């Protein structure tokens, strides 16, 4: 369960970061994360949607129906101001976490 939470938290911050470049539909978010991580993080693609919907409910992102690059009807997600604040907060805590773990590993 703890692992799952960690994964979910990780997924949230990745999605927020992805959306910080601009509105995207769900599939584009997946593609973008895959490219950026060079497929290092294999996520179950479907898991993206509960995460997106939950964040929408929390008001971090907003959804709007629009038209995709290939002229299909698609749901686009956009970061809200609150979402941006959340991203900054989470990014910072991730950085601190990584630094701390890194320091421990270096001294070992």
């Amino acid at each position, binding site marked *: 369960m703890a692992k799952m939470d960690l994964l979910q938290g990780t997924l949230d911050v990745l999605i927020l970061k992805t959306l910080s470049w601009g509105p995207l539909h769900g*599939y584009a978010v997946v593609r973008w994360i895959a490219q950026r991580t060079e497929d290092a993080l294999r996520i179950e693609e*479907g*898991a993206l*949607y*509960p995460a997106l*919907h939950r964040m*929408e*409910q929390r008001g971090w992102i907003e959804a709007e129906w629009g038209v*995709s690059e290939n002229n299909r*009807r698609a749901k686009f997600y956009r970061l809200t101001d609150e979402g941006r604040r959340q991203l900054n907060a989470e990014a910072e805590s991730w950085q601190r976490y990584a630094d701390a773990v890194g320091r421990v590993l270096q001294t070992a």
Partner: protein
Amino acid sequence: MAGWRRAFRLHLRGGTVKQDLDDEIAFHVEMRTQDLIDEGMAPHAAREEALRLFGNMAGIRRQCEEIGRRRERGRHWSEVASELRQDALFALRQLRKAPAFSIVAVFTLALGIGATTAIFSLLHAVVLRPFPFPQPERIVYLWSIDRGDDHRSVAPGNFVTFRRDAKSFERLATYTGASFNLSGDGPPERVVGARVSAGYFDVFGVKPALGRVFAEAEDRPGSEQVVVLSERLWRERFGADPAVIGRSIRMNGKPYEVTGVMPASFRLRSTEPWLWTPIALSAEDETNYGYSYLHVLGRLKPGVTPEAAQAEVAGIARRLETIAPDNNQNKGAHLESYKESLLGATTRRYLILLGAVGCVLLIACVNVANLLLARSAARAREIAIRAALGAGRGRIVRQLLTESLVLALTGAAAGVAMAYGGVRFLVAISPARVPRIAEAGIDGPVLVFALAVGMASSLVFGLVPALRTARPDLQGMLKEGGRSLGAHRDWVKTGLMVTEVALALMLLVSAGLLIRSALRLQQVELGFDPAGVLTAQLSLPRGDYPEPAQVVQTLQRVVDEAGAVAGVGSAAATSIVPLSRYNTSSSLEIEGKPLEGEEQIEGNTRQISSGYFKTLGISLRGRDFTAGDRPGALRVAIVNETLARRAWPGENAVGKRLSYWTDEEENPVWHVVVGVAGDIRQQDLTEDARPEIYVPMAQASEDLWGDRDISMALVVRAAADPAALAAPVRQAVLRVDPRLPVFDVATMDQLRATWTATTRFNMLLLTALGVIGLVLAAVGIYGVIAYFVGQRTQEIGLRMALGATENRVLAMVTWQALRPVLAGLAVGVAGAAAASRVLSSLLYGVTATDPATFAGVLVVLAVAALLASWVPARRAARVDPSRALAP
């Protein structure tokens, strides 16, 4: 309006949440499939791969739908809440715009809700609150049945038999009241305690707060000098010192070891004992089947029904007839629920009172409904405009109900403030013996009750006006400038008036019956003259007065000393003060008349000094006791008239012989009747005199007092205010012996008041409620008629212009008002006849259908209604036609 559009869309969206999700997922899978095909995969395989990559489709779909539903729900509630807030704010503005209406309505509701809340607070504190011990419903009293009386005390021999044989009980225990002189730590003090058998505390399932209760071994003669203190005594006399456990304290001149302290919660009544010592029944006691003085309590085993237990004790009672035929013939055993015994009568009384305040609340609601109806006419235009702008009927009803709710909750808040004072008042005037009443107050459950009553009231008084006001009669309303409402005959208003008058009548009849009961009770002939009599209890422990003769001498000196106090007309001693709630009785034997079974005479027994009859003002034929009636002289007795009639009908009792106890050879000890005293109310004001025998205390002392501690009472007749004699009489007693505590000093009028307290309480309360009901009903009638007159000003003006006289108009309007009043009176008489039957248990000396009360109340109500309608009718009759008809 915006809220409505949102709400509308909300409903459509119920179906689209799913649709959106389907579209979103389909888009994803298709995009992925296309990408895979572009990478060179075959279309079919690409689709398979895309689905695989997507993962658990059904699970994800479920998760997303759940999130969607939660979101919709949250949005729905926040919409409802914001709408409610808007409505409430709007309602507040509306109410502020009509301050006179709002103040009258809130005050009316506050009266109704406040009174209801105050009574509920008593009901909650006394009845509904859980008991401070587990499963109180399993605790039962065991009584003896004797000659139709099923609440008789139990003889120790019978108790021991029940305890040994009955299998229905986890524990069977006994107690008997006893009082103790405390000395040593601090000033000498008299406290009421109880002598109880081991296991008494187990019956209640209460553990001591400190130390331990008695062990079985301590409940035996010789080892019984241990005591368990009540929390109150521990706090007040021993400063709540935990080190008191194990200490020795002096009681009745003997040392007792303190073993424990009971918790404060183990005190349901103000009359609860201050301490407990073991009863330590001796072997002799255990075979005593004749002297019945024990109260027996038991806790039923789990799974044993009261019926099964009753059957078992009845069986044991039958066996007792063969074990001790002399004392147990034709007797039986009766189990009574402890809760019922403690609270049954009070519960029924409170429910009746709750019904009465419910009537007041209903009248208040009816009044407010009337006010709202009157207002609805004034608001007709506003409502019509809102309806024209697209507000549906439901929406308008909701807005109007919110206004009612705001009104009711404001009324409830004011009512709670009233109840806060009301509860204190009720507790102050309540009979002191009601258990747990001291803790009554406004607490959580009571507040919840007030809130619920407020909300329910808002529906009761708000729904009908709201539905009527929201009636979409748009065109007519707008065209006629809002004048059409109320012009036709108004059944709703008539109905409300009928209801109001009927409820007020029921209340007033109940109040009237209780007032008459209280008067009757106050006028009960006691058979003696209570005015000017002071009573005081004395206790003479055997530790201090080993010889009966010493007791008698001391008492006689106390009587003489008290009689010499300035302002005292006469003084006497008695074993039992009338109306004091104590009693002793015995089976009587009449010389030459063996009486069997039902014919046997049970008589109250009293040991008195000479001068007793003179002091209390009891009539006496024959002679009083004198100093010559001493031990060894001829045994004499005085009987009351009831006993004289029962024992020697048609004959002169003086000179006859009777006996109330037997000597060691079971031979009756004969006493010669030297006088016949008038009957008095011995115990209950409402109970007819029982047979009673008085004997001189000097003659009783030698044989009957044994080594028991003697409790006697001093009665004193004062020339003026008896209460003023309390201090000098106390000093007189202390002059005889400074060790003698004087306690329970009370005037006879105070003792009498304890018997009328309940009736007085009921009467005061119902009278107050009746008056409130009457005033509210009158105000309600006035309001309706005034409104009616206002509505018909034009019509009245027209009639007058056409030649109607003032008197005719007066008659017309008054008749209009009196028709529903008369209907209300008719309905009310029927209702009151039903209600008073419920009330009959609280009545004394008056029947539930007392014609005088009904007639009186009818007159009072009719006059009030006439006045309430006459005032606006007069205004109508003075209408100036030229003004009324002016455009």
